[in-house]
């Protein structure tokens, strides 16, 4: 028995090296099929030989690639997440810029049209009357302790004052001829309007702009944008007037 085990052991070693003959392999198969007790360490060999003898190689069917689909799906998931993030970024930035433009444009309309009625008033505070309605929401905010709000208000006040001074200086020079500019600002329809029509239209736009500015909370950005536009308009006034 000991002898046989040693013999089998040797044959198994050569079997694993691929060096056994067909005859030896047949004897190994016979041993594993018939032996009453098989040593523990040869269990896997027993499974191999009995399985192959039973035809496991024939009946297993075609090989199945097990891992491939999973791998590809992981890749797809990563790509999907990346695509969604990109989309969010693009949409977000588009929305942000659109918002900015809208506020700027509204503020521009408010200031540009607000110049019109202030001109005929002909006293020395024309811009004050035009500016106070648009800044009303800002002024209506109760005093806050947060430094951010303080800074916001300080900034607003600062730009406000600057533009007031400019307003007064420029308007004093421009008072004789405000009409051509105001017609330019009204984005010039093809047929020239009469003076009363023009003033009606501007009143309409002004009131619309004011209600807009009162209902929407104009933030610091909007105010700054408005002041920027106002400054630009004033520059044009000065340029045309001189």
């Amino acid at each position: 028995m000991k002898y046989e085990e040693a013999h089998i052991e040797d044959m198994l070693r050569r079997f694993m090296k691929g060096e056994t003959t067909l005859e030896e392999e047949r004897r190994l198969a016979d041993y594993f099929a018939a032996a009453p007790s098989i040593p523990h360490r040869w269990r896997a060999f027993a499974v191999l030989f009995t399985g192959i003898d039973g035809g496991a190689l024939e009946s297993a069917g075609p090989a199945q690639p097990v891992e491939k689909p999973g791998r590809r799906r992981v890749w797809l998931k990563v790509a999907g997440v990346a695509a969604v993030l990109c989309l969010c970024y693009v949409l977000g930035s588009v929305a942000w810029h659109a918002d900015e433009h809208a506020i700027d444009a509204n503020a521009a309309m408010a200031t540009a049209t607000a110049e019109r009625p202030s001109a005929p008033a002909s006293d020395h505070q024309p811009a004050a009357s035009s500016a106070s309605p648009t800044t009303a929401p800002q002024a209506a905010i109760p005093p806050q302790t947060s430094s951010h709000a303080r800074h916001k208000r300080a900034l607003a006040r600062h730009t406000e004052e600057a533009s007031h001074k400019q307003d007064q200086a420029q308007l004093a020079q421009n008072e004789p001829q405000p009409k051509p500019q105001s017609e330019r600002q009204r984005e010039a329809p093809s047929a020239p309007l009469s003076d009363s029509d023009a003033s009606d239209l501007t009143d309409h736009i002004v009131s619309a702009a004011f209600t807009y500015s009162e209902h929407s909370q104009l933030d610091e950005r909007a105010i700054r944008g408005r002041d920027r536009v106002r400054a630009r308009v004033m520059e044009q006034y000065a340029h045309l007037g001189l």
Partner: protein
Amino acid sequence: MMDEQTYIALVPTVRHVVLREAARYLPDEDDAADVAQEVMLKLWQLRGTLSGDKKMLYAYATVLSRNLCLNRLKAKRRHPLLRLHHSDADEGDCAEEAAYVPATPGPDVALEAREAYSLCQKAVRQLPEKWRIILHMRSEQHMETDDIARALGTTAGAVRGMLSKARARLLTLINQQNEIRRSTH
């Protein structure tokens, strides 16, 4: 249809064609030889369904070889970071397996023949096709090593190496199945 004698007569040429095609795609000679071996194994398995036309056989062998090369290249390219690991694992564990006679911690219960059969079948199902074919040639068709070498256009030594790798892989898979079976009980 192509009978075995005709096929074996064509084998050296076919192998040459296959090897040359593989060498065009794979810079490494060993890789190319590997692919050629796999192609020859597949062709052997398909020999019953091949047409008798020599030129068709060469063309088919060429296409088979090219596709296997491309698969191999793709597998290596798929995860650039894992590529080193991939090639290492592939070669390293083959070389190790060839010399490795596993000590097999089997279950305490003696396996019945039926159980052994299903276990072996599961393991065979996971065995790469090329190893399955060579084991089939040896254990089912009882071909001598020299005959196998002639059928594949290689040497007897190469056939012994392949048999060794195939058996080692199958044993490893059987052990894995055994582990799985034991852990589920």
